């Protein structure tokens, strides 16, 4: 050897004041280089992320609680209560999916299990009318136990089996609740009505708060049967408490261990973390939250039905959690609110139309970078529409004579939108009264094909293809989809999930994650 390998010459000290060892300017500024969204959305999301999450939580809850006093519209208050229930559920799902990175597909089954159990304990079904606090405590404990049990057969290092087992439990649950009015222990006993079958269990007791007499504080006993207002408050209180509790857990050793588990379960285990136990804990904690939500659900609706706890609800919840950003408490709440409000808005064609076109316009404005492209696409869209309309009306007046949908059964040919659309869009005369919405169907399929094609082309061809895609989509919307809210809602959720995973897996407010390849 030429130089002694044990003592190599240390690098010469630089004469100038260059960065010292251990103090690295480049690394110090790494945050600036982390890809963050630019432009208006970037600024907005930085603003939102800058405000401490507590403020958002308190503000949101305050708004939700005040709403029943500001409006007497029962529908709105109902939406308020439903949204809060969704937020509660999303908080719980976030534990397993967002923090621990597990796919818990049985979540809705915990929710339903809790609701049914509460219904069994606090209703006329078995004649038990347990006091509220007793029922709720027992239900939550039972649901937590259920979560533990379901997570038990999952394999240590792979989350796939948890997904399978929980999915199947959901199916078992659905099967059992729908057929449970004649449960006969598989033929070994007499038929027994456990779950009330397809009609469910009704006349469930509402929550009853006890008479409180502590020192000088005296609160009368209440029966919370003024749904939904009372349950807005209950749910909001639940959210506040649970968000705080979960927030503390997230900052403690269990939260860190869940995050480590999500990052690399093998390494986590090598660092002393009991991976299997942590998985079970994450599922169980989520189940506990779902347990509480289930009791609120049962008391609020004063009944439980098998059709309320099915796969579509699971997808809805997942869409909320993923959209908001799995792992971020604030993001999850945001996702719940956005998705629920969106779904509600889609119910009425008139409102839905606003949303549809607003999303398209905003989406174009945000995503089309050079102003010229935006104007070109917009102009092309107008031109195409008007041209198509003229051609169609030249071929046959009936092709453009149709009205636009306003409400479930009301149509109109007047009004701002109607006038605008009827000159731009081809609306055949018997669009809504015809048997099969054939044209709309073809347009829908064509839209899908065009959208897929859009992802394949690049550059200016993309702008060009965008024009017919939007036009055909609008056509499918106006002639078909707008009136099919029960189908469009789940369709939209499915699309949200697919697109989010491909484009922005961190959701709107989740942490941008780096994956090792």
């Amino acid at each position, binding site marked *: 050897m030429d130089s002694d390998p*044990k003592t190599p010459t240390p690098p010469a000290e630089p004469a100038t004041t260059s960065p010292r060892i251990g103090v690295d300017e480049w690394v110090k500024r790494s945050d600036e280089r982390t890809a963050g969204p630019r432009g208006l959305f970037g600024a907005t999301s930085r603003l939102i992320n800058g405000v401490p999450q507590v403020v958002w939580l308190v503000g949101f809850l305050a708004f939700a609680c005040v709403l029943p006093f500001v409006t007497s519209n029962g529908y709105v208050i109902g939406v308020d209560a439903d949204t809060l229930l969704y937020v509660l559920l999303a908080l719980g799902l976030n534990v397993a999916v967002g923090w621990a990175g597990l796919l818990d597909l049985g979540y809705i089954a915990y929710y339903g299990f809790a609701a049914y159990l509460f219904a069994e304990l606090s209703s006329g079904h078995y004649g038990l009318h347990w006091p509220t606090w007793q029922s709720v405590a027992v239900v939550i404990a039972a649901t937590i136990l259920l979560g533990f049990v379901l997570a038990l057969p999952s394999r240590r290092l792979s989350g796939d089996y948890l997904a399978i087992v929980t999915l199947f439990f959901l199916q078992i649950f659905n099967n059992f609740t729908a057929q449970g009015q004649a449960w006969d222990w598989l033929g070994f006993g007499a038929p027994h009505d456990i779950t009330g079958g397809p009609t469910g269990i009704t006349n469930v007791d509402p929550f009853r708060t006890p008479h409180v007499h502590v020192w000088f504080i005296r609160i009368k006993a209440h029966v919370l049967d003024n749904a939904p207002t009372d349950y807005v408050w209950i749910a909001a209180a639940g959210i506040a408490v649970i968000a705080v509790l979960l927030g503390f857990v997230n900052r403690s050793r269990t939260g860190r261990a869940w995050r480590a588990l999500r990052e690399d379960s*093998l390494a986590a285990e090598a660092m002393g973390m009991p991976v299997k136990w942590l998985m079970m804990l994450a599922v169980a904690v989520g189940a506990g939250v779902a347990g509480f939500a289930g009791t609120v659900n049962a008391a609020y609706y004063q009944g439980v039905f098998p059709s309320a706890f099915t796969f579509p609800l699971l997808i809805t919840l997942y869409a909320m959690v993923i959209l908001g950003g799995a792992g971020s408490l604030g993001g999850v709440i945001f996702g719940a609110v956005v998705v629920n409000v969106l779904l509600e808005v889609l119910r009425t064609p008139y409102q839905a139309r606003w949303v549809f076109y607003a999303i398209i316009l905003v989406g174009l404005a945000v995503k089309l970078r050079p102003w010229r492209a935006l104007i070109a696409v917009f102009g092309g869209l107008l031109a195409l529409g008007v041209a198509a309309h003229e051609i169609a009306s030249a071929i046959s007046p009936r092709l453009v004579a149709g009205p636009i949908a306003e409400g479930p059964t009301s149509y109109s040919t007047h009004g701002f939108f109607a006038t605008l659309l009827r000159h731009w869009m081809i609306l055949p005369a018997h669009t809504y009264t015809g048997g099969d919405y054939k044209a709309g169907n073809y347009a829908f399929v064509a839209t899908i094909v065009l959208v897929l094609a859009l992802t394949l082309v690049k550059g200016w061809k993309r702008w060009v293809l965008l024009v017919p895609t939007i036009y055909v989509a609008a056509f499918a919307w106006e002639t078909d989809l707008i009136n099919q809210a029960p189908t469009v809602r789940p369709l939209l959720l499915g699309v949200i999930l697919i697109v989010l995973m491909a484009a922005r897996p961190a959701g709107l407010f989740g942490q941008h994650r780096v994956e090792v390849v």
Partner: protein
Amino acid sequence: MPHETTQKRPMLELRGLTVSFGGLTAVDKLDFQVGEKEIVSLIGPNGAGKTTVINLITGVTRPSSGDILLAGESIVGLAPHKITQRGIARTFQSLRLFLNMTVKENVMAAQYGHTRATIVEQMLQLPRARREQRQIDAFAEEKLAFFGERLMGYRWNQPAYSLSYANRRRLEIARATATRPRVLLLDEPAAGMNPVETHEIAELIGKLRDEGGYTILLIEHDMHVVESISDRVVALDHGTKIAEGTFEQVATDPRVVEAYLGTKATTTK
């Protein structure tokens, strides 16, 4: 100077350790010991079974036969996290950091096995949970301080993926020490480092033994490192031990030379 291992019980002992995958015997009746505060290097050509030995010791792989003893107690069959809690920690040949967590969090997370606050205590921020949190925090800073200025200060809150390669290797070792082990298994800690960094790592390993009191089993390819810090060297080839002793003894052992370089040139005419 090799430590005297005959007087007290060895810290880590492998007895007749064997594991087969299908028809391939990856480790064959392996016997050796590592005394307390010893630094033993495990060398051998690629595929000799060195990482498999570490996997066996840490419980990732189950041995077909044989025993592994930590301070005299058998640890075969225990779950990996339990083995770590008993006092054996490892680093990975291909780094396995928690990349999206901060530097400090990586080290804090590794302390899970030695903390006791239940989830209810964490939710309600009861005294034990808060106290442990402070301890975890302080301990993490202490472990990171071992590496000088490199992982200190503002670095604590940097995500681990922003670290340079050498710093990632250091963090991996820091994280392993945070599990309060008695034995450290370092799998190629100097891989991919330049000579300066390699020298630093070698010094660091010595420092780990001297100041930290750890017993160290080291897998390494860089013979300079092996020579400079090992008390003893064990050479493996095709899963069997072919030599054991000081570096000079092992490096000149004909079987070791043959394993690395092939059969002697003099046999071919």
